[in-house]
């Protein structure tokens, strides 16, 4: 029997301070998440300097809770892992400095993890991944189709040319008067409304795997402003449903193009927007209709947003490859695969 591996992982790339203890990259012993949403709601979006300040306030308390809840001490740990990008530089630095300090103080190997890879590997906490698998990464900052050929080997097949899908949700949400982050609320409204506004589905005719959401966002905003000018009352649920209808058509179109080129046994959907109920239902239905022998893996809601458990999951793969970092690591705000 192989010895168990315990990794203490840190995530602070945006507005959540999170520390987790993960066993063998699969089992969550603890996953403490301190979210700053209420703070940033005052400003209508994440303010980087405010976020950095909150991370410093939270970080040691999160470590303490993570170790307590997991009922482990430093001697039980095998490594320390931390997100080093992409994200907000000031936010990333707090997790990085704290993780480096713990690794240094207890003489533990350090692993630097890619936040995007973490989102994808959140699936590893709920399923046995079979390679190659396809991942649709949809979050506030990213919209990517990624083929994972082997453990920790990523190939980006498609990306957004402008806004990320979560960003588009937040921007049209603002026009509907919804507090940041708007995705969840828009999703709920969409479930009650009808897709009647016929917003554009950008790039779905094009034979590539890239996305564009800024045109959709602009049509939405123009439609609402036009109605305001002529004092026309639009049904907000229908607006949400029409926006979400376009988003789902675009995502579905591109991901199935990718799956046609690269047939796989598993499709992982990860990132904050993977919490979207409409998306969950839509992809399930699409797979059934196409009679595909493919598992659809959506991580549970708690693992869709930013969290350190997913960082522990990807870090295990790096641990197995002895892909260790040293105490000189720095934040890489625009890191990609």
């Amino acid at each position: 029997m192989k010895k168990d591996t315990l990794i203490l992982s840190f995530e602070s790339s945006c507005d959540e301070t999170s520390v987790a203890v993960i066993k063998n990259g699969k089992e969550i012993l603890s996953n403490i998440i301190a979210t700053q949403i209420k703070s940033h709601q005052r400003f209508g979006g994440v303010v980087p300097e405010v976020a950095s300040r909150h991370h410093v306030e939270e970080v040691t308390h999160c470590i303490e809770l993570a170790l307590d809840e997991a009922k482990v001490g430093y001697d039980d740990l095998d490594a320390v892992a931390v997100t080093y990008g992409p994200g907000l530089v000031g936010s990333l630095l707090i997790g990085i400095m704290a993780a480096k300090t713990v690794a240094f103080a207890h003489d533990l190997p350090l692993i630097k993890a890619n936040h995007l890879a973490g989102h994808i590997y959140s699936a590893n906490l709920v399923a046995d991944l079979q390679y190659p698998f396809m991942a649709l990464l949809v979050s506030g900052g990213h919209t990517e189709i990624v083929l994972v050929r082997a453990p920790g080997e990523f190939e980006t097949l498609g990306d957004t040319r402008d806004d990320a899908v979560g960003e588009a949700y937040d921007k049209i949400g603002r026009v509907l008067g919804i507090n940041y982050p708007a995705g969840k609320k828009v999703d709920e409204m969409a479930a009650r409304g009808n897709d009647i506004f016929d917003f554009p589905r950008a790039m779905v005719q094009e034979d590539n795997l890239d996305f564009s959401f800024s045109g959709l966002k602009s049509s939405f905003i123009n439609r609402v402003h036009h109605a305001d000018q002529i004092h026309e009352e639009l049904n907000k649920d229908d607006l949400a449903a029409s926006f979400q209808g376009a988003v789902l058509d675009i995502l579905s179109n591109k991901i199935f193009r990718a799956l046609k080129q690269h047939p796989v046994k598993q499709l992982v959907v990860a990132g904050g927007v993977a919490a979207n109920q409409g998306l969950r239902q839509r992809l399930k239905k699409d797979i059934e209709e196409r009679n595909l022998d493919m598992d659809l893996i959506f991580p549970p809601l708690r693992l869709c947003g930013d969290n350190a458990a997913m960082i522990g999951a990807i870090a295990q793969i790096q641990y197995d490859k002895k892909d260790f970092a040293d105490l000189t690591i720095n934040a890489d705000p625009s890191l990609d695969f």
Partner: protein
Amino acid sequence: MKILAFDTSNKPLTVAVVCDGDVLASIESTEKKTHSVSLLPDIQQALKDSKLSMDEIDLIAVAQGPGSYTGVRIAVTVAKTLAFTLKKNLVGVSSLEVLAADGSEDKILVPLMDARNDNAFAGVYQYQDGELVNLIEDHHTSMEKLLDTLKQYESDKLEFINATEHLTDLIKDVYPEAMVMDTKDSLPEADKLAKLAENKPAVSDIDNFVPNYLRLTQAEHDWYQKGHKKDGNISYVEEV
């Protein structure tokens, strides 16, 4: 008492290990280093130079601000995490006091951090019987107001520390005879930080130890300006 001290609140980075007043190791870098990259390796090096292990350290002393927000956060995060994870005592010292520690014994010391737009972080200190005493608390101020406040002291007694070229111009306009140390001549020294820390109480609540920014963020400032108030009970950060 064995003290590990460090300061990254401005461009220079300094780390020292001091044992009962003796400086066992001291690392000072003036060139612009990336603090997030260098701090832990430099701490490691300072311990190695002093032939001590982290276990043998009794106290961690850190410059707690004001200064560059990111810079101060780097040192404070490392200091509080070290103190928390190894159950060590922690002391925060004003970054301005560290600068003042290098001033003349017989002067009124005014350490500064340029905060742009004719503003500065400043405090007023004086050596009394070999001890550095705080006369005016560290604060964020317009230079105009600061220079006016300093009129209560004899101008030839004033010694400004860590003045950028621009701040020097503003000072010289009002106090042509004052002594002004520029940023190159005003390097924080972690061994002095360690000695200052010795006389201060240890932090009782490490989790809540944060930098002394001495300024709200712009976003919060604007939010309060709009008449918003913090609802007494609200917690802006919550565990989920």
